[in-house]
C-alpha cells in the first residue's frame, strides 16, 4: 500500500468536495428559498474564473483578482436575478430550465466574444506555487490553499446562517417561504441577496480551480451536474446536507477513480478490471443518488422537517 498516494488522494478528494460544496451551497439555497432551478449556476463558476484571470493579468496580484472578482460576480449575480430570475419565480420549473439554459448559451458566447476561444491561464504568485514538506509527505501549497479557502467560506457561511438575523431569514425562507413573506419581510431583497451570494460562492470555486486547470468555455457545465447531485442527495435547501454530501461525493469519486481497478483485480482478471473500473467509477455517484432517492425521495437532510 502506497501511503503517500493514499494521503494525496485524500487531499484531492477533500479539495473536490469543498469545490462542490461552494457550488452546491448556493444552488441549494436558490432551490430551497426561491424554488428556482438555475442550470446556469455553472456559468458563474466560469465567469468567476475569467473575471479573476483578467484582473490578475491587469494588476499582477492574485489576491486583487480574487477580491475584485468576487465583487464582480456578486453584482453579476444580482443583475441576473433582477433582470431575469425575478420574473420567473412564479412560473413553472420548465420555464426556469429553458431560460437558464438560454443563459448558459449567452454566457458561453459572451466569453467566446470577450476572451476568445482558447483558455485563460491564471499565474500563481511564487509563494503559492511551491510545495510543502510534512514528514515524508509532500503537498503542493496551492492545494492546501484551496482547502483552507473552501473551509473558511464554509465556516463564514455557517456563522452567517446560524448566528445572524439575515441567516435566520434565510433558514426560515428555506423551510417556509410563504410564512416569511406574510410576516412582512422584504422578500425581494432577501432573494436578491441569496442569489448574488450563491453566484459569488460559485465564482469563488471557479477562481480557486482556474490556476490549476485554466479558465475555459463551458468549464462549469460538467461540474454543475455533480453539484446538482449533491443538492438532491443532501436535500434541497439544506446547507448542512450540501456540506456533508459534497465531501462524501468528493471522496467516493476521487477514491473510486484511483483505487477501484486495484479492488476489482481481487475479484476478476486484470484486463477485465481495467476495462470495467472507469465505467463503474463514473456511475458510482449516480447510483448513490438513485439509491438515496429510492429510500428517501427528499434527500438525506431535508430542511423542512417540521413543516408539511
Amino acid at each position, binding site marked *: 500500500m502506497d501511503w503517500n498516494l493514499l494521503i494525496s488522494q485524500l487531499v484531492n478528494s477533500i479539495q473536490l468536495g469543498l469545490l462542490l460544496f461552494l457550488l452546491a451551497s448556493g444552488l441549494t439555497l436558490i*432551490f430551497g428559498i426561491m*424554488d428556482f*432551478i438555475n*442550470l446556469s449556476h455553472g456559468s458563474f463558476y466560469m465567469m468567476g474564473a475569467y473575471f479573476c484571470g483578467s484582473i490578475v493579468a491587469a494588476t499582477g496580484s492574485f489576491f486583487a483578482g480574487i477580491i475584485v472578482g468576487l465583487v464582480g460576480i456578486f453584482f453579476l449575480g444580482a443583475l441576473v436575478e433582477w433582470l*431575469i430570475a425575478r*420574473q*420567473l419565480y412564479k*412560473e413553472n*420549473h*420548465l*420555464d426556469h*430550465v*429553458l*431560460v437558464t*439554459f*438560454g*443563459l*448558459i*448559451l*449567452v454566457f*458561453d*458566447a*459572451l466569453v*467566446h*466574444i470577450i476572451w476568445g476561444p482558447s483558455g485563460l491561464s491564471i499565474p500563481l504568485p511564487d509563494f503559492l506555487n511551491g510545495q510543502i514538506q510534512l514528514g515524508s509527505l509532500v503537498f503542493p501549497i496551492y492545494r492546501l490553499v484551496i482547502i483552507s479557502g473552501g473551509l473558511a467560506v464554509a465556516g463564514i457561511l455557517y456563522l452567517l446562517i446560524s448566528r445572524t438575523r439575515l441567516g435566520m431569514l434565510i433558514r426560515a425562507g428555506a423551510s417556509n417561504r410563504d410564512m416569511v413573506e406574510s410576516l412582512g419581510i422584504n422578500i425581494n431583497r432577501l432573494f436578491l441577496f441569496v442569489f448574488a451570494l450563491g453566484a459569488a460562492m460559485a465564482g469563488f470555486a471557479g477562481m480557486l480551480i482556474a490556476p490549476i486547470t485554466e479558465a475555459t468555455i463551458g468549464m462549469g*457545465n460538467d461540474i454543475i*451536474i455533480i453539484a*446538482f*447531485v449533491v*443538492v*438532491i442527495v443532501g436535500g*434541497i435547501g439544506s446547507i448542512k446536507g450540501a456540506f456533508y454530501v459534497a465531501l462524501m461525493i468528493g471522496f467516493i469519486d476521487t477514491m473510486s477513480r484511483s483505487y477501484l481497478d486495484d479492488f476489482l483485480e481481487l475479484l476478476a482478471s486484470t484486463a477485465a478490471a481495467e*476495462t470495467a473500473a*472507469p*465505467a463503474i*467509477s*463514473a*456511475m458510482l455517484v*449516480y*447510483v448513490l*443518488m*438513485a439509491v438515496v*432517492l*429510492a429510500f428517501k*425521495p*427528499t434527500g438525506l437532510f431535508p430542511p423542512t422537517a417540521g413543516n408539511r
Partner: protein
Amino acid sequence: MAKPSGTRSVKVYLGMLFLLGIAPLLFQWTNQPFLLDLLSRGLIIGIAALSLNLILGYGGMISLGHVAYLGIGAYCVGIPAYYDIYDGWIHLSLAIFTCALFALITGAVSLRTKGVYFIMITMAFSQMIYFIFLSLEEYGADDGLVIYARSEFPIWMNMEGAVSLYYWIFGLLILTLFFIHRLVRSRFGRVIIGSKYNDLRMQSLGFNTYGYRLTCYVISAVICGLAGVLLGNFTSFISPEMMSWTRSGELIFMVIIGGAGSLFGPLFGALSFLFLEEALSLITIYWHLIFGGLLIALVLFGKGGIDAWLSKLDK
C-alpha cells in the same frame, strides 16, 4: 393541451407530410444533396422531440436527460457494427430492448420523485450514460466510434442510399405521429394527460398513475431509441458528445418552441431549430448568443410555440 384540430389544420398537416414525402424527389431534381442531408437530420431529431413531447407535453414529466436514449440507440448500431454484426433487425431489437430496460429501471426510481427532483434525476441518469460511454476505451471513449456500413435489411427496404435512408426516417416519423395521435386519444392517454393536471384526482379515481406514467416513460424512451438507430446510421460516426446534457436542453427547447402537447409542434420545433442553427452559423460564429437570447425572450414574452401561432393564423 390537446388542441382540437379543425378540418383545416388537418389539411395543413397532411399537406406538410405530403411535401416531406416528395422532398427527396424535389431535392434530387434540383440537385441539392445538402438539403436532403439537413432534412434527414431534422426529421430524426424531430422524432426524438416527438417522443420527448409524449412525456413532457402530454404527461408533464420534464425530463432533462432524454437525449441519453438517442445515444443508446445509436450505440446499439455502433457496438454491434464494431464486432461486424450488421443485421438491422438485431440493431433494432437491441435498441428497443436496451432503451426499454434502462427506461424501466431509471424511470422506476425517477418517477417516485416530483418537480425539481425529477428534472435533476433524469439529467443525472443521462449524465451517467454519458460518462460510461466516455470511459469505455474499447468503443472509442471520447474519440467516438466510426460505423463503416449501415444496418443491413432485405433489399426492398435497405437503407444504403441517402434517399432510401430518408424514407426509413420518413416512415418512422409517420408511424410515430400516428402512434402518438392514437395513444393520446386512448384511455391510456387520457390518464396520462389527467395526471399531468391533477395526479391526486386521477389516483382517487382509482388509476395507478405511477404505472401509467412509467409505461409512458418507457414507450417514449423506445421511440427515441429508434430515432437513435437512424441517427447512428445517418451520421456513421457516434461519440458520447451527442449525449451531453446540453443536448437534452436543446431537445426541450425544440419541444417548447414547437409547442408542447401538440401533435406536430415538436416536429416544427426541431426543424426550425436546425434550420435556424444552420442559417445563423453561416452568418456569425457567435450564433449561440442569438440563440440563447431568443430562448430567454421566448419564455419571457411568447407562449404556446409555433403550433399556437399557426392556429392563430388559422382563425
